[in-house]
C-alpha cells in the first residue's frame, strides 16, 4: 500500500466497522510511513477537538419560547385546514 491508497482509505480507518484485514494493512503502512502516521493522529485530534467544543447551548427559556411559537403555528395551520375542509 502506498500513501495515495492509504489516504483513499483514511475515512474507513476511523470507522469502527472497517474489516480487520484492511485495518491491519493500513496500520502496517502507517508503521513505516511517518507522514501518514502524523496525518492520522492529527486528523483524529481535529475530530476530537471539534467534538469536544461546547458550542453555545440553547437555554431552556429560549427552548420553551421556540416550542410555543411552533405549537401556535401548528394549531393555526390545523384550524385553517379544518376551515377549508368544512
Amino acid at each position, binding site marked *: 500500500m502506498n500513501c495515495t491508497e492509504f489516504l483513499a482509505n483514511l*475515512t474507513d480507518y476511523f470507522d469502527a466497522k472497517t474489516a480487520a484485514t484492511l485495518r491491519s494493512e493500513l496500520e502496517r503502512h502507517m508503521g513505516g510511513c511517518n507522514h501518514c502516521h502524523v496525518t492520522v*493522529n492529527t486528523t483524529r*485530534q481535529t475530530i476530537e477537538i471539534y467534538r469536544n467544543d461546547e458550542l453555545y447551548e440553547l437555554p431552556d427559556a429560549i427552548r420553551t419560547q*421556540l416550542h410555543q411559537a411552533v405549537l401556535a403555528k*401548528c394549531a393555526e395551520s390545523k384550524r385553517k385546514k379544518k376551515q377549508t375542509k368544512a
Partner: protein
Amino acid sequence: MATLTQEEKEANALHPDLALVEKVKAGDLSAFEQLMRQYDRQIFRIALHITQNREDAEDIVQDTFFKAFQKINQFQGNSKFYTWLVRIAVNESLMRLRKRRSQKTVSMDDEIQTEEGSIPRDFADWMPNPEQNYNQAELADLLRKTIQGLPPGFRAVFALRDIDGLSTEETAQALGLSVPAVKSRLLRARLQLRERLSRYFRVATGEHAR
C-alpha cells in the same frame, strides 16, 4: 382504535418515535411537543454548525419543526424520524445561507474549488493537547473561523458525521447523497480542517526532536 399488528409493535419498540409520530398524524400536538423537546437541541447544534449564526440557528429550529409538522404525513418510517428531521434542518440551513449571502449556489453540490487541503502538506506533529494553549474564547473563535472556510455542504457532512455522530448511512440519508459521496466529502472536510488547524497546533520547529 386499530390494534397494532405484531410487526407494527416491533417497529414501535425499535423506534419509540414512531408511536409519537402516529399520534401527531392523528392531530395530537402534545406528542409533537414531546418530539421537539427530544430533538430541538440537536437540531439547533446542526443548524449552528452549518450557518455559524446563533439567530439563524434558532429560526431554523422553528422552521424545521413547523415544516415537519406540516409534512408529517409524508414521513413513511423508511428512516428514523430523527434522520428525516435532520434532512429538513439541513435544507433549511442551506436555504438560509443562500438568502443571507444572496449567493447563487449554496448547495450540497458546492465543490471545493481548489485542491487545497485535499492532499496533506503539513506533516508536523502537533503539540500535546494543543487546544489547551488557547483560552475558551480564543479556541471557539479559531474553530469557527476554520470551519467557515469549508463550503456549507462539506460543513454539513462533517457536522453530521463527526460532531453529531450520525452513521455514514444516516448522513447519506439526511443529505440526500450516496454513501461514497459522503465518504469522499468527509475525507476532504477532515483533511482541510486538519491542514488549517495545523498552522496553530503544530510543534514549533525549534522544539522538534531530532
